[in-house]
């Protein structure tokens, strides 16, 4: 699981992209996606490909790692493309393959949609690969902060997120322990019919839930013992700070988005 799919993982490095404020990266990602959806000129797509390639190079994350890690996505992109080529009915007919008439618009629209999918996923992956999950949580809290005025518990949500992130490895370890313990008792959930396999999962999930609840209770007590009284009126140790480079990047991205929009009218 860990090696096969990398969306959502974080690789610590000290690159230009890593050093940007998480908010800068999120804003840039949003602007990028907007750009992608307003344009329909082929040459701008080549610009976008160049931009994404540039970002990947700047992040110092090996391209081979990205290519291997996003394997399931490649299939999705290729299938999307083929689907459009085969079933698009606009434009000039080009040629005929086993009764399917292929139109030029099929290539163009298929290429556009597949490109959008591809570029969006690569950029989103790049965000998580270069930003620690906690920094993303902090950024989200900052973006959502105005909603606390409406009485939404944003600070609590942020703490919940942070604790969940902290507990993922613990729970994974626990799951592993339980599955070994149950395998030692003769449980096998890797073979047989789907229904049997699902049934065999129960003896794994129930102990996992029970231990998760116990852990939650103990953790709540430990938090309370350390003076936790709710997520408001706390100070914060972690800080996200906008630096000069962040302002420059946000300005550049905004300018680029607006000018591309005006150009394509």
């Amino acid at each position, binding site marked *: 699981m860990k090696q096969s799919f990398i969306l959502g993982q974080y690789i610590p490095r000290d690159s230009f992209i890593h050093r940007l404020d998480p908010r800068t990266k999120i804003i840039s990602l949003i602007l990028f996606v907007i750009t992608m959806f307003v344009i329909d000129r082929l040459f701008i797509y080549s610009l976008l490909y160049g931009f994404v390639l540039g970002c990947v190079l700047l992040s110092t994350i090996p391209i081979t790692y990205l290519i291997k890690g996003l394997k399931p996505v490649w299939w999705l992109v290729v299938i999307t493309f083929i689907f459009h080529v085969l079933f698009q009915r606009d434009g000039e007919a080009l040629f005929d393959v086993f009764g399917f008439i292929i139109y030029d618009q099929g290539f163009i629209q298929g290429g556009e949609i597949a490109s959008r999918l591809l570029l969006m996923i690569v950029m989103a992956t790049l965000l998580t690969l270069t930003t620690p999950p*906690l920094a993303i949580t902090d950024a989200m809290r900052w973006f959502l902060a105005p909603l606390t005025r409406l009485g939404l518990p944003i600070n609590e949500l942020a703490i919940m997120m942070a*604790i969940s992130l*902290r507990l993922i490895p613990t729970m994974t370890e626990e799951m592993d322990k339980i599955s070994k313990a149950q395998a030692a008792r003769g449980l096998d959930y890797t073979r047989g019919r789907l229904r049997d396999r699902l049934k065999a999962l129960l003896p794994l999930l129930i102990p996992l839930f029970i231990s998760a609840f116990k852990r939650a209770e*103990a*953790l709540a007590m430990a938090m309370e013992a*350390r003076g936790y009284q709710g997520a408001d009126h706390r100070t914060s*140790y*972690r*800080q996200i700070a906008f630096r000069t480079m962040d302002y420059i990047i946000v300005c550049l991205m905004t300018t680029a988005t607006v000018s591309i929009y005006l150009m394509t009218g």
Partner: protein
Amino acid sequence: MIELEQVSFRYQNEASHVFENLNLTIEQGEWVAIVGRNGSGKSTLAKLLNGLCLATSGVVRVNHTVITSESKHQVRTQIGMVFQNPENQFVGTTVADDVAFGLENLAVPRDTMIKRIDQSLEQVDMTAYKNHEPSRLSGGQKQRVALASVLAMQPEVIVLDEATSMLDPIGKEQVLSIIQELHEQLDVTVIMVTHDLNEAALADRVITLNEGTVWFDGKPREFLEKGDQLHEVGLEPPFVTKVYQQLSRQSITVTQEPLHYEELVDELWRLYLKT
């Protein structure tokens, strides 16, 4: 100073009391070990001290403040608590974040926070692990971080509820020597719940709980003198005590009851040189 006056406590929906009319005073700067069999109420007593449990009747006072549901938050700034399971008290995503958690709750300004985090990690010798995630730490290291988290809050009292029971001998030794150092240098009150009587012998005072009452309260040496009587309250006398008692039974007298191996070895040498 901690005072319990006529304290009774019963868990909600439970028929019987854990404590009835318990009286106890612990002075500032004392090192107290609390021992007793499973279910004798040690953890419950610990939780009464910082308001995780509130007395059903009677009063618990910490530095003359009575613990109530209003005052408990203020009291928690003076009493730090380390629990048994290292995994279940690590709140932060990294070591530094975990130490910061308590300080954030106290709304300590960030620059002070940074200083205190470094200082307390230094005290438990975990500075090198500042940015590590808990999954990359051993149980003993996690427990030292838990101790650092408590120290950063600069409490007057530290309560340890079987904090070393899940550690190997080396981890145990490290945690205990840190506690010893803190006790000597900073004069913090240490209240240590334990099942290990060798560990209890390190304290200035041993309190033995049995069926919700104080069965013994006094010096570790007097406590170990009870010898076989300890079986009555579900405790096993340590090896050193057993040797001493065997010697006494054989009418071989030594100068004083040994507390730990070194004292026993000294006594045995003395005997050997006499003969």
